[in-house]
C-alpha cells in the first residue's frame, strides 16, 4: 500500500497572519472558518477583532423609504451621449444632464444649487 513520504507539517504561524493570507487570496470562506476555529480555541493570545469586523456578514439595517425614479432615460442618455463627456463625471435626472465636470467634489457642489441635484444619478465616463 502506498504511504505518504511525510506528514504535512501543521501551520504554526499566528492565526492573524494565516487569515490575512486567505483574505488577500480571496479565500473568504476559508478565512471565516479559520477565524471561527481561532475564536473557539480562544487561547492563542491574538487580537482578532479586526478580522471579526472584516469577515462579518453584511447586515440589513432597514427597508423602506423614498422611491427613486425609473432610471431608463438616464441609461439611454449614457448610451447616446456618453462619448461626448469622456473622462468626466455626469449628473443625470430623468434623461436630463444636470451638470458635468472632471472633479466629483466640484460637481457635487454645483448640484447643491440645482432643484433636482439631490436626486441625481452620478457616473464617471471612461
Amino acid at each position, binding site marked *: 500500500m502506498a504511504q505518504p513520504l511525510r506528514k504535512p507539517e501543521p501551520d504554526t504561524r499566528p492565526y492573524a497572519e494565516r487569515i*490575512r493570507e486567505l483574505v488577500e487570496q480571496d479565500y*473568504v470562506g476559508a478565512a471565516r472558518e479559520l477565524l471561527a476555529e481561532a475564536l473557539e480555541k480562544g487561547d492563542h493570545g491574538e487580537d482578532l477583532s479586526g478580522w471579526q*469586523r472584516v469577515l462579518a*456578514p453584511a447586515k*440589513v439595517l432597514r427597508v*423602506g423609504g423614498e422611491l427613486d425614479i425609473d432610471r431608463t432615460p438616464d441609461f439611454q442618455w449614457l448610451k447616446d451621449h456618453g462619448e461626448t463627456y469622456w473622462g468626466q463625471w455626469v449628473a443625470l435626472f430623468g434623461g436630463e444632464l444636470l451638470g458635468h465636470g472632471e472633479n466629483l467634489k466640484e460637481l457635487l457642489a454645483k448640484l447643491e444649487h440645482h432643484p433636482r441635484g439631490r436626486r441625481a444619478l452620478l457616473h464617471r465616463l471612461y
Partner: protein
Amino acid sequence: MLTLQGHAFTLGRSKFSDHSPIRFEPTAKVYVNVQFGDRSQSWLAQLDTGAAWSVLAPDVAQAVGVSVESGDPALLITPFGVKTGYLVRTTFSLVADEGEPLHAEGQFFISPDWPEGLNFLGYSGLLEFIRFALDPQANHFYFGPGV
C-alpha cells in the same frame, strides 16, 4: 415583488443598465443603482458575483464621507493589478423604483490608486447575504433581505 412558495422573496426592484459605460469594456455587464453613506445622490455599481470583495471608488468614498482609515489594511489582487487599501465597513442602499429600498452595511475595499468612479458590488460580505434576482428581458434588478 417576487414570492417564493407564498412568501416574499424580494421587496424592492430597480432598473439596471446592461450597457457598459466603460469604453474599453466590450461585453454587457449589470450596473445597478446604489447610494452610499448619507448622500441622497446615487451611483452606478457593477454587480459582480465573481468578485470576492465589493469596491468603492476612492473619490466616491471621499464624497460620501467614508473614513478610509477606519478600516483594516489589505492588499488585494484585482483586474487592475495588486492594490493596497483598506477593507471598510460602510452603509449603502439598494435604490428601488418599485417596492422598498434596502439599507444595509457591508465591507468595501477602498484603494487610493483604484480608478475614479468604478464601484463594484461583490459576493463576499455583501451579495451573499441578500437575496437578488435579475430579469434580463426587462432589465429589472430585484432585491431583498436574506434569511
